[in-house]
Each structure stands twice: as C-alpha cells, then as structure tokens.
C-alpha cells in the first residue's frame, strides 16, 4: 500500500513538474518582449484611415479589426514637429509590422533596408526605413504609412515607430538579427538540418514507425517552410494563401508521431487522413466565397491544433503510465505548438493583438525536441550495448573459467580412471602369475618342513624362478604401446635366453618375418607372452631336450603367426596336461587361436594373432 501511494505521489509530482515546465514556456512567450529600442522620437499615435473612410486618431501599436478577408489597405498618418532639421541620415524603426508596408515622409517614398526573400510580411516582421539627410525639415513633418494585405484574412499590425540615428534606434544585436527576416532564415536552416538528420536515421531504420512519421513530418514541414521564401514563381504566389489548408496534415502527422513514440497502436486510416483532409479542404475551398473559405481554413487549423493537443495528451498519458521522462518532456513542445497555434488563430481573427505569428517557428521546435529525444535514445541504446557487451564478456570469462575447471576435473577423473584401470590390471596380472607361484613355493617349503615327502630344492628354485620370470613379464609389459609387440617379444627373449642357457638348451629365435600387429596393450602383450612362456615351459618339461625354436611369420589376412617348435619326447602325445586349453582360451581373448601338433618327432605350438589385437 505504501509503495502504491508513493508511486502515485511520484506520478502526481512528475505531472506537476511537467505542467510547470509548460507554464514556464507559455509565460516566456507571453511575457518576454524584445528589448525596447531607443530613438529620439517615439510615435504612439496616428490617424488611421480604412479604405475611403476619413482618418481617425488611434493608438499605436494598432491592429486591424472587423475587416473582411481579402485584399485591403489601411493608411496611417503621423505628423510631428522638429525644432530644426537634423542634417544627418535618420532611421525610422518599427519593431513589428504585419502585412506589406509602404511609407513616405513629406511626400518622398522611404527606402526599406534589409528587405530579403526571407521577409514574410503577412507573418510579421521588423522594418527599418532610411530617411535621407535632407528630408527631415525643421517644423512640421508628415509621415504616411500604408499597410496592404494582398490576400488572406490575417489582419495588419503596426507597432510604435522609433525615429533616430541608426545606432540609437537599433541598439541591440537582438534587434539587428530580427531585421530582414534573419530569424526566419535561421529557423529554415534548422529545419533543413533536422530534415537531413531524420532522413539519414530513417534510411538506416526504415521499419521504425517513429522514424517513418518523423521523416514524413520533417519533410512536409521543410516543404511548407520553403513556401514562405519570397523567391517562388508568380503562380505559386497566387495560391500561397491556400497553403494554410495543409496545416491539418501537420496535426495528423504529429498525432501519428506521438502515438508511435508512446508505442500506442495507430489506426490505419490516420496516414490516409494526412492526405485526404487537406485534399478535401482544397476541393471545398476553391468554389467557396471568402467567408466560407475562412471557415474552412479555421477548420483545418482546428484539426492541426487538435492533432497536436491529442498528441501531447497521448505522450503525457504514456509518460504517467510508463514513467519515461522523455515522453513527458516531449509532450511539452506538442502542447506548446497547440498553444501558439491557438494564439495565432486568435490574432488572425483579430481577437488578440500581437505583432508576429509564431506557429512557423515552433514547428521546428517540435522537430528539434524529437531529434533530441532520438539522440538520447541512441545514446541510451549505445550505453545498453556497451553494458550488454561488458556483461557478455564477463559471462564468457566466467563460463571459460567454469569450463576450464570442469576440464581440469574431467582430466583428473580420467587420470584417476586410468590409474584405477592400471592398478586393477596389475592386481589381476600379479594375482594370476606371481601370487600363484609364491603359494606353490610355500606349499613346497611346507611339505619339506613337515617331512611328508620331501620337495627337492630344485622344485622350490624352479617355482621361485618362475615367479620371478612372471614378475619380470608383468614389469616388461607395463610401458608397451600400440605396435610394441616386437619390443615385448625382445624382452621375453632376453629373459628366456639365459634361462635356457642354464638348462643347456639352445634357443633359435627369429622375429624377422613377423608382420606388424596393432592394438597392443600391456594386458594384450602380457597375454601373448604368457602363452609363449607356457609353450616354452611345456617344451622344456615335455621335450626331448633339443633346441627350442621360436619364430614369427606372416599368416593369411595379415595375421601374425608365432611358433614354438621343439624335439618331441618319444612318448609325447597332444592332448590334455599341456595347458593347451589355457593357452587356447588366452589366445581367443585376443581374437586369435592356438594349435598344437606333434609330427615327425617335432612338437609345434602355433599361436595366430589377428593384425589388430582384440582388447582382452
């Protein structure tokens, strides 16, 4: 509850701040005035003549009222007395004049300075007239001014007049800048700049609805501002008063833009209305008499103001809901356009007095505000991208660290598994070989000790040597690699040779013809060596004592053949008791096989191995 109340409080406060901002802008427009020019003489009275009617005294500034639309001229006569002729060039300065001015002094036409294509007499301008040195007389002087409206319904306006030397009447740079419509030139340049910026943005993001509406508004506004420059062909000049019928388009475009910025769904017909409304007004305008035309223009102006007003309300509502300050701030220039437009309508209708019409100036202000908003958005987006990049980099670093830790754990686990496997294999190998021999040595020794049939020392020695041989077999096969069968066989030969030498048996060994065998693991090599060991042991035990030949050769399909050949004992017969089943089982584990045959007095054990050993 407290949170909700606080949020409501913040919203109300935000609304008040925006209202204050808007009010400050209004006050600025209404209260701030151009600085009062200097001058030796200030004319604030004149005789005013409407058409053929006789002139009547009136105060300056003077604004037309109750004058029907269409061409019209009002004359102003100002009489004044100088004690003596100044003998210098003087200037006559009007801070604000609306409609075309023509002035004469003592019957001589006065030259208007700083008249440029940027001057827009119907919108209001500042006027500086040059008075030649010999024109002002000592005594009575007569100044005559004619304000002429060539078309339209905008009433004429004439401010006070200031007479003096140039330096004294135009005292500030502000006033200098207003001369010759320089303010309008500046506004147009700003317009152009904004339009180019918007086009650039839009060309890069054509699907963005904000940019679509904005570029439309910017281009249309620039085109409209261009029609104010006094360099257009004659026929354009003739239809110039009708350009005001384009104003409703701006109101509709502003509404579309505001809805796009506030992310509110926009009705499809809105963009058609942008074209259809002014077109309809044109069609109705052409055949109508001036009073109806004024009504049509006012209706168009009402649409224009309504569009801006609704747009500002849409933005303000979105600001209150979404809390995005940019929307609230943007609502202010929209509302300001509405306000200024309303003021200009009142001035045009003669209800309010003012020297200048300001709508053309504030339109650029809206575009400028939107452009600032877009720049802000761009900067925010870039910041977000930077932040996102930072975040991504951080996350990447974290993930890399995590991955590396994971990899390290996995590596340790794999190393542990390999160690476990090796340990298991060693246990198994030692159990199969060494342990069995040691147990048999114990059995032989005990039999010796208990005297129940003596075991010969030779038997014990033989068992011990076999145990040692087996241990060496295991050690020898520890570090073997994939194609290290020849190395394993060489190690076996190196241990076998002295053993046979001790027994007085010749060893005929050759592995020259052995083809390459792959898939050799320590376990696989140990199995091959154990088969050979058993074969040689059998040859020693059961042979006739002749030489033992161990040879390697190639079989079919790349198979490797190892033969152990010896002279058979006279009573030898193949079959049981030679551990043949054991050898056969071991050979099959490797994907090979053994055969044993006795022929021509020779016992031959053949071990065949595939070109690639199967993991035992």
């Amino acid at each position, binding site marked *: 509850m407290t949170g909700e109340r606080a949020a409501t409080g913040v919203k109300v406060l935000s609304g008040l701040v925006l209202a204050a901002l808007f009010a400050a802008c209004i006050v600025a427009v209404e209260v701030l005035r151009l600085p009062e020019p200097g001058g030796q003489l200030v004319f604030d009275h004149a005789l005013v003549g409407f058409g053929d009617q006789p002139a009547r005294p009136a105060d300056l500034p003077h604004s037309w009222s109750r004058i029907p639309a269409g061409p019209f001229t009002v004359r102003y006569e100002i009489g004044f007395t100088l004690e003596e002729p100044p003998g210098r060039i003087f200037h006559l300065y009007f801070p604000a004049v609306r409609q075309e001015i023509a002035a004469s002094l003592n019957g001589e036409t006065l030259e208007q300075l700083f008249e440029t294509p940027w001057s827009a007499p119907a919108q209001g301008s500042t006027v500086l007239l040059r008075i030649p040195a010999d024109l002002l007389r000592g005594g009575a002087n007569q100044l005559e001014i004619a304000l002429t409206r060539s078309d339209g319904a905008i009433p004429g306006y004439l401010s006070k007049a200031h007479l003096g030397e140039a330096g004294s009447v135009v005292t500030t740079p502000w006033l200098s800048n207003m001369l010759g419509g320089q303010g309008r030139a500046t506004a147009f340049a700003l317009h152009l700049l904004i339009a180019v910026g918007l086009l650039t943005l839009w060309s890069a993001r054509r699907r963005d609805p904000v940019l679509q509406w904005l570029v439309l508004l910017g281009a249309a506004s620039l085109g409209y501002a261009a029609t104010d420059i006094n360099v257009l062909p004659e026929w354009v000049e003739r239809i110039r008063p009708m350009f005001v019928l384009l104003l409703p388009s701006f109101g509709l475009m502003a509404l579309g833009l505001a809805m796009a910025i506030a992310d509110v769904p926009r009705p499809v017909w809105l963009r058609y209305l942008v074209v259809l409304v002014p077109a309809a007004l044109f069609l109705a305008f052409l055949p109508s008499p001036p009073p109806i035309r004024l009504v049509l223009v006012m209706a168009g102006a009402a649409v224009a103001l309504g569009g801006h007003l609704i747009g500002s309300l849409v933005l303000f509502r979105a600001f209150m809901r979404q809390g995005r300050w940019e929307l609230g701030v943007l609502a202010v220039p929209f509302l300001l356009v509405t306000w200024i437009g309303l003021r200009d309508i009142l001035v045009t209708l003669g209800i309010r007095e003012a020297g200048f019409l300001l709508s053309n100036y504030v339109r650029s202000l809206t575009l400028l505000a939107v452009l600032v908003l877009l720049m802000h958005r761009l900067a925010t987006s870039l910041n977000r991208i930077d932040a996102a990049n930072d975040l991504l980099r951080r996350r990447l670093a974290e993930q890399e660290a995590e991955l590396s830790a994971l990899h390290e754990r996995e590596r340790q686990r794999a190393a542990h598994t390999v160690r476990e496997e090796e340990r298991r294999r060693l246990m198994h190998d030692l159990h199969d070989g060494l342990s069995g021999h040691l147990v048999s040595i114990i059995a032989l020794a005990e039999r010796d000790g208990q005297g129940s049939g003596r075991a010969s020392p030779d038997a014990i020695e033989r068992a011990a040597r076999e145990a040692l041989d087996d241990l060496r077999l295991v050690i*020898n096969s520890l570090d073997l690699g994939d194609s290290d069968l*020849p*190395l394993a066989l*060489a*190690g076996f*030969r190196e241990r076998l040779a002295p053993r046979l*030498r001790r027994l007085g048996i010749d060893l005929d060994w*050759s592995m020259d013809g052995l083809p390459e065998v792959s898939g050799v693991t320590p376990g696989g090599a140990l199995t091959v060596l154990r088969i050979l060991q058993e074969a040689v042991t059998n040859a020693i035990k059961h042979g006739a004592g002749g030489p033992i030949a161990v040879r390697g050769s190639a079989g079919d399909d790349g198979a490797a053949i190892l033969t152990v050949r010896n002279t058979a004992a006279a009573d030898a017969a193949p079959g049981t008791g030679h551990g043949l089943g054991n050898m056969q089982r071991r050979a099959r584990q490797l994907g090979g096989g053994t055969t044993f045959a006795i022929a021509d007095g020779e016992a031959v054990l053949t071990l065949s191995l595939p070109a690639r050993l199967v993991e035992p």
Partner: protein
Amino acid sequence: MDESRQTDTGAVAVILTEDDGPIRERLAEIIEGWEGARLLAACATLAETLAAIAAHPVDLLITDLRLPDGNGIEAIRTLARERPAAEAMVISVLADERTVLDAIEAGASGYLLKDANPIELVDAITDLMAGRSPISSSIARVLVRRLSERAEAPAGDDAGERPSMTPREMDILWGIAKGFTYGELADRLGISRQTVPVHIRNIYRKLQASNRSEAVFEAARLGLIKL
C-alpha cells in the same frame, strides 16, 4: 666386511656390495669359486663400500643400488673418481630401464640380475672386462627416444652436454630397440656379432661423458619418458 686375501694372479679384483645377506653370500661364493676373480670385499652398506674402494686397488665394483645407508650410485661415482680405470656393474632384481640407465649415467658399464647363476655371472664379468656391455631392448628404446628428443631441442640448450652417437651406434640402438638379436643385427649391419657389445660400451661411455654435471643428470632423469 669380509676381507679376502691378496693374490698375485692376474685375476679381476672385485668389491661386492649387497645388503641382503643370503644373496651376498651366494654371489660371493660364485666369485670366490672362479679363478678369474678375487673378492677384495663383500660389503653390506655404502659406508663399507666407500671404505673398501679407498683401501683396495679395485678392478670391478659389483653393487646393489638400494643400500641401507645410501645409494649404490654414490659408490659408482666415488669409484670413477678414485679409481678411473676400474669398472662398475649394478645388480638388480628386475634390471628395469630406470635403474639401469641411472647406473649407466653414474658410470656403470654393465648390469646383472640378482638371480644370475654362476655361468651368467662369470660371462657378465668376462664381457665387461673385455670391453663389452649388455643392453636390453627396453633400455635401447629409452635411449633412442632420449637422443632423438635432444636432437630436436634447439641448438645451444645443452649442446655441450649432448652425446653425439655415430651412425653405426644409432643403427645398433635402433635395431635393439626394435627387438633384433645381436646376431640378427650383426647380419644386417655386416659386422661381427662380438662387435655389437663393444659399440654398446662406447654408447655407455658417451652417456657418462654427457652426464658430468648433476643438473644435467637430473634433467636427463626427467627426460625419461616412456615410449
């Protein structure tokens, strides 16, 4: 320490070091029973061995490596320093390549299995004194691996300490590492079978020469990576 009597014959003067009593006695018996050798001392510790080396003009030290008060390698080094002309041989249960290579680099020229019978022991001593050294296929393979690693190392790293083998010596090492017998190797290389162990002795000498500093000795130990 069992002192033996000096004789004037041309027999090989031997110091035997083995901490296991029965084995020491067995080996001592074999040596004493052979007229080609005379046993100067049968030692059980490193201290006894060093004392014996200092005391006797010895021709051959036969030593175990793992001793109660130190390593037999120290005795071999002392022998190489004190009696440069003398030979050293290690006795080992398994004669695995780590043990044997350590001993060779310390100055040993041969090795012997502990369960050797008299004939094997006599053959081993005779070969060693005649300038022939044994080598197993697994030791040859480690040596080949180590030498090729050193050859690949950037020049200048240990160029001064790198043993440079002759092509013939490399052929022999490669052949033995591949599992050829001395006979097969001699046939292939067109040399006498008896020449093979002489080349191996030269290889031993080069390994010792390349291993004079302790630092390189340690580095070489670290280089013992399995094939």
